[in-house]
Every structure is written in structure tokens, then in C-alpha cells.
């Protein structure tokens, strides 16, 4: 009798389980992850609820961490400073795989088809590429240099740049053996790079000389295009307390907006001609200059010691229309996909703060442990993020 009851219970559970999961599916389209840099964890957040849902721990050293999403917005691949590559399932809220693939890593990307995950490393310098399902290494591309500015490009390609040698390489994974195209003379000490959302223009910022260098990836043989060659740290070298970041949120209508190096300015560049169209003086040395998804506003945060402040620039007038101090150590900003809100990590306040981008009103604060990067799942469907 007892056995029969147990058997019945088991049968009921088996039949109940799929029904239950159908009744409460987990939609991930408005979720996101916040890097908690000091504790090696990520916080799962819900944009619509403006709330934290869960903390997932055990991701290693996340002091300079970023992540990308699988095309189905279920898995995040988290790139840690310690070389850890961690695959997180945001539906079950757990780590499903983790490898330590290098000694010192800086960032990563996922191929347009979602099958390959690439990581750029400082030590050993180069890029390693992994199967997105299993995290088994499928290619090792040593570059002999600290490697930065790794992005995905259409056509199962990755593009990345070398801090020490000033080269950009394009690795084409159309076939399983990558075809590498090397572009020399990109400039001295490129520090980061971005690719535009249409996958056409790759821009790397230079630390060791004036200006930036662009590549037209639609060209069969991309050549370095100098951008603002007379601009940069200039004759009197300006100390840089934090390298700016270049991210794919750069297009505002017909212009790119980019943080200057050393100077308290953001730079405006015509997207077609790559010539300068203006400069906006800012509160400090910019770290991120991020265009709201519609391009109408640009939000800027700053390097130490002015990193408690954000300025908002109108992209038509190029003037600062709002300035406020969210709190100590503003590290990152992420817009909701249509730009109505922005989420801001304020590291030393231990909070993620949510603002309305029209009224600038603060809507909510979420507790987080030394938050840095914020990544919404909508990035899954954008090139270069």
C-alpha cells in the first residue's frame, strides 16, 4: 500500500512537473546581471520590477569583468580578470560551467551565430575561442601582446587589437580553422575599441599617440584610417587615472561620440567622413560616454577623483543639460533597451540606482555589493555587445 502511494506520488510529480513549468515560464527578455566586483558574484535583476531576483556566487576575481549573452538570452558568459570564463544559466540561476582559461583576462565576445565565445587575455597575450555549449577550447590565437578591444563582427568573425604591437587582427571562423587578417600600424598603445552596431566600423582609441584609428570592415582589405590625428594627450601629456572605455553605444544620429583620453572632453565625429564635428567640455576625464539607445542623449561618467558625478549631454546642441552626483564611484551605466531608464552602478554606495532619462528622477535603488558592470539581456541581439 505504502509502495503504491509512493508510486502514485511519483507519477503525479512526473506529470505535474511539465505542467508547472508551462504555467510559470521564466521570461528573460527584461532581465540583466550586475557584476559584484569584490565578492565574485553576479546579481540577477529584473528591469520591469526594478528589483534584484537572486545572487549567483563563485565566479572568481571580477575586478574588471564583463559578460555576453547567448542568442536565446538564457546563458551569460562572464569574463573575469583572473582568466575565468563562467557560464551562468539565468533561468535556473546557477553556474553551469566554468573554466580558468588564462592568467589575466580583459574581455570577451560571442560570435554572431552564438556558437563561439572568445576571450582576450593580457597573460598569456592573445585570444582563446571556446565552444559556447561545452566551453571546450576550439582555437588558441597567441598575439605576443596584451590584447584588447575584442568584438564580434558579422560573418562569424572576431576583431581584436594589441596594446604592445599596435596591430588589429580579424579572425574569420567561417571554417573551423580561423583565417587571420593582420592590419599593422593601427597606432601606438591602443587601449580599447568598439564596433558600430551595424558591424561596419571598428574604432580603436590610442593611448600612446594622438587620435583614434578606424577600420572599414566592409572593405576587402581594411586599411587604418586616422581619426583626429592632431588630437590626444598632446604636447603636454595629460595624466590618465583611468583608461576610458569604448563601447558600442556611440552613435547619436549621424555622429559618433567618444571619450577623450586625458582631456576633460567628449569628442564628436561624423559617422560617414570620420572628421571631427565638435567637442564638449566635461566635468572630468570621461570613462564612459554612452549614447541612449535613441541617440538623443549622451551620459558620461568620470575617472577618479571626480567619479561621483554624471553629466548628460544633448546630442543635438552638444551641450550639457543635466549634472548630478549619484554617489561615490559611479562605475557603469546601462540603458533599458528603448532608453526610458538608465541603471547606474555606484560602487562605494553599494547600490544600483535607477533613473528616468526624461525627468532625471531617481526611481529606485537596489542593494548590490560593490557593483560595476550592468548588462541587460537585450545585448544578446546587438553586434559588438
Amino acid at each position, binding site marked *: 500500500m505504502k509502495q503504491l502511494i509512493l508510486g502514485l506520488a511519483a507519477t503525479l510529480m512526473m506529470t505535474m512537473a511539465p505542467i508547472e513549468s508551462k504555467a510559470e515560464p521564466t521570461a528573460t527578455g527584461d532581465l540583466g546581471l550586475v557584476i559584484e566586483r569584490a565578492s565574485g558574484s553576479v546579481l540577477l535583476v529584473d528591469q520591469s520590477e526594478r528589483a534584484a531576483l537572486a545572487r549567483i556566487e563563485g565566479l572568481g576575481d571580477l*575586478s*574588471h569583468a564583463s559578460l555576453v549573452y547567448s542568442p536565446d538570452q538564457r546563458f551569460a558568459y562572464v569574463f573575469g580578470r583572473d582568466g575565468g570564463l563562467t557560464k551562468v544559466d539565468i533561468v535556473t540561476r546557477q553556474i553551469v560551467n566554468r573554466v580558468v582559461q588564462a592568467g*589575466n583576462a580583459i574581455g570577451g565576445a560571442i560570435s554572431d551565430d552564438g556558437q563561439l565565445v572568445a576571450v582576450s587575455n593580457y597573460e598569456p597575450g592573445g585570444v582563446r575561442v571556446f565552444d559556447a555549449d561545452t566551453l571546450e577550447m576550439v582555437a588558441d590565437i597567441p598575439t605576443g601582446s*596584451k590584447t584588447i578591444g575584442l568584438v564580434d563582427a558579422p560573418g562569424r568573425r572576431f576583431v581584436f587589437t594589441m596594446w604592445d604591437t599596435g596591430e588589429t587582427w580579424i579572425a574569420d571562423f567561417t571554417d573551423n580553422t580561423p583565417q587571420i587578417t593582420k592590419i599593422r600600424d593601427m597606432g601606438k598603445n591602443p587601449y580599447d575599441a568598439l564596433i558600430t552596431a551595424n558591424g561596419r566600423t571598428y574604432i580603436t582609441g590610442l593611448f600612446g599617440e594622438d587620435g583614434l584609428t578606424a577600420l572599414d570592415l566592409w572593405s576587402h582589405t581594411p586599411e587604418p584610417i586616422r581619426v583626429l590625428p592632431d588630437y590626444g594627450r598632446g604636447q603636454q601629456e595629460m595624466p590618465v*587615472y*583611468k583608461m576610458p572605455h569604448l563601447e558600442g553605444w556611440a552613435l547619436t544620429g549621424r555622429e559618433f561620440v567618444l571619450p577623450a583620453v586625458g582631456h576633460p572632453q567628449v569628442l564628436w565625429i561624423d559617422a560617414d567622413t570620420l572628421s571631427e564635428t565638435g567637442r564638449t567640455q566635461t566635468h572630468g576625464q570621461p570613462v564612459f560616454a554612452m549614447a541612449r539607445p535613441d541617440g538623443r542623449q549622451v551620459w558620461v561618467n568620470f575617472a*577618479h577623483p571626480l567619479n561621483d558625478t554624471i553629466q548628460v549631454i544633448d546630442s543635438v546642441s552638444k551641450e550639457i543639460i543635466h549634472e548630478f552626483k549619484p554617489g561615490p*564611484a559611479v562605475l557603469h551605466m546601462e540603458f533599458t533597451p528603448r532608453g526610458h531608464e538608465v541603471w547606474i552602478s555606484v560602487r562605494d554606495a553599494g547600490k544600483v540606482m535607477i533613473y528616468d532619462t526624461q525627468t532625471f528622477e531617481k526611481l529606485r535603488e537596489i542593494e548590490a555589493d560593490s557593483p560595476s558592470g550592468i548588462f541587460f539581456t537585450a545585448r544578446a541581439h546587438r553586434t559588438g555587445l
Partner: protein
Amino acid sequence: MARLAQQERTPLSVRTTEGSGWAARAVLTTTVLVATSALAADVIDPNALKRLVHQDCGSCHGLSLKGGLGPDLRSDTLQHYNPEILTGVILDGIPDTAMPPWRPLISEEEAEWIARYLLQPEAQ
């Protein structure tokens, strides 16, 4: 403040020139440490400086100082540098590299505190 900084500099310069003898070095180190702690109440905020090291130096050298765009700063790696050299690098940077001068942002006493802190295993 300026007067105190001047007093602080004197034993340091002595130490640089006579720094070969271990005993002399130890005595002078003690002197400097005493001088530093005498200033501490007004000037040095160890927690703020530790935060600066790990969070802001850490943006290039790594939160745990293992290195990144900038080199490894763990105490084992730095052992062959004396604190004056490190203090100088912190204050004035290294030309033609990404290491900026921190003199505009921190005092000499703070730079010295950071140099000594980096040489202690505790820094990791």
C-alpha cells in the same frame, strides 16, 4: 601641513644616501614610521588609501594587484624596490608609459604610506 611635510622629508633623504647598512636602515625606518604615525591622526586615512590602492590603482593593476594593463604589484614582485623608489614612481609616474603622476591627487605622505603598504604581504 606644509611644515610637517618638510619635517617628514628630512629623514627620508638621509635614508636614501645611507641606506646600505641594514641596522641603520631599520633604525631610520622606525623613525620614519614614528613620524608617519605622528602625522596619521591628521593626514593619513589607511582605509581610504587601501581603497584607493585596490579600487583605483586596481583599475590598471587589478583589484588583487596581480596586474592588468599595468604590472603585477604584489609584495613578492616588488621586494627588490625600496620604498623611496616606489614613492617616487607613485608621485611622478613613469614617462612614456600609462603610469600617471599621482602628485596632483595625493600627498607625499600618502604616497609613502602606499609604497610601504605595497611591500607588505597584507596588501594582497
